[in-house]
């Protein structure tokens, strides 16, 4: 049934890059009367399903907002629970038969990784190294990330680059800034889905979403299903001609 549905969808353009803000895990836990952290675990299962649907339909790049720099302001116990879950699932990606293995996914951890604990950072670096040879699909996990921090980092790296070159008099260009963006390893997203109906981007991919369809279904992240992914792709297909015209105008 799903493969028939995907065959029909593939008659139109498929987004190259689908981005997700996984909002609503805590509200889900409250709604289902679950314990602390259980909402995030349920959210993880939803993430795995969404990744499978996207890779099966032919989306090459997927990015997810796993943890914002602003999220460090949460209660220390909650931050620890989330970090423990991230560590557990990151180490899981190294195992045989993991989703990275199954779908040939190259994994990037994108953000200010120096803000993470050594354990999580080392696990992330191991996964990036272990999956570096995968070429079928790409997963960008935005962790300790905000757009503003990304811009600051990019400007810093541009200035450091210019300082290294003796007698360098040329100005910093837009292409230099974009080269140093954390998200520079992927093309700009074509569609961004934020679950739980919230209409803001919360400091996520603000730079990259100039020509990106924004979609906010009211379902909480653990409730996100195949239908939401399909509806997102259909929305993308409806706006495809409009954005192609815009991109051509810019060139």
């Amino acid at each position, binding site marked *: 049934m799903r493969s028939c549905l995907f065959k029909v969808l*593939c008659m139109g353009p498929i987004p190259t890059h689908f981005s997700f803000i996984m909002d609503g895990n805590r509200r889900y836990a409250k709604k289902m009367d679950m314990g602390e952290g259980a909402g995030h675990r349920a959210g993880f299962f939803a993430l795995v399903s969404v990744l499978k649907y996207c890779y099966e339909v032919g989306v090459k790049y997927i990015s997810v907002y796993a943890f914002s720099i602003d999220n460090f302001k*949460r209660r220390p116990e909650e931050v620890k629970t989330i970090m423990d879950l991230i560590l557990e699932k990151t180490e899981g990606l190294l195992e045989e038969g993991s989703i990275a293995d199954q779908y040939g996914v190259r994994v990037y951890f994108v953000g200010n990784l120096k803000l993470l604990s050594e354990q999580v950072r080392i696990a992330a670096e191991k996964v990036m190294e272990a999956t570096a040879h995968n070429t079928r699909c790409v997963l960008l996990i935005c962790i300790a990330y905000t757009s503003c921090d990304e811009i600051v980092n990019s400007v810093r790296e541009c200035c450091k680059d210019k300082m290294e070159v003796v007698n360098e008099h040329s100005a910093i260009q837009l292409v230099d800034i974009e080269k140093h963006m954390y998200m520079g390893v992927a093309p700009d997203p074509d569609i961004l889905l934020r679950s739980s109906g919230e209409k803001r981007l919360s400091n996520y991919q*603000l730079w990259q979403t100039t020509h990106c*369809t924004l979609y906010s279904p009211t379902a909480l992240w653990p409730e996100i299903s195949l239908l939401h992914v399909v509806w997102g792709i*259909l929305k993308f297909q409806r706006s495809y001609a409009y954005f192609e015209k815009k991109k051509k105008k810019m060139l």
Partner: protein
Amino acid sequence: MDRKQKVRGFSCSIHQIGNLGLRLLWSMVHLLISIGYFVAAAAKAVESRIISSGLLTRYKELNISKLKYLAVVIESDDAVQTSKIVQLLRWLEAMGVKRMCLYDAQGVLKKSKDSIVKMLDNAVLLEELGEKDLMEKPKCMALEFASVSDGKEGVVKAANLLFAEYKELGNRDEQFFTEAKIGEALRAVGCKGPEPDLLLVYAPVRCHLGFPAWRTRYTEIVHMGSLKSMSLGSLTKAIYKFTRVRQNYGK
């Protein structure tokens, strides 16, 4: 050989018929979606009329004080419709909106800013207000006009300004680059506006069309449809819904 060619030709035809069938199904799905959107638009138009008539009491008292700064994004092709833009601004002024930004990617609105301000009874350009006026309670509507040159290009200019300072100080300190420093540099190059609380998008698709990334961290982004379908009722509803939003800013 002849038989093999016949079989190959036959399976090719089946494949083509199959593809044709799938394409037909895909077109039918999109036709149904378009019909759905048409019906929804008609329902919205009726609702908008009812809201404008004042029959619904909840929309009568808008808590406009929560909306400190509003931004309106307009599709550049529609930005030439100055009379529609002025009508929109008059509605917003009547609701009590005092500080706002009008944005279109190509800067069409910037070119006609003087004529737009002249057509309004009691409006000024935000750039003409001094620091003292900005701190005081606003007496009239102050308008900012922005385009893509205030977004990514603004960050490039700010980066070059910071590089000149960094180079002059011979500073190798990475702590030199902070969000506050970038913010200061953006203001120095003319990208001064504050972060809007609400961004209304008048375009065929819900996206921010390159509104300055630095200023939309926690901005609510609401799609209003194309400018030709603008109505007082839908504007009232969008602002009312904004006043009911609760943000936790990542916490």
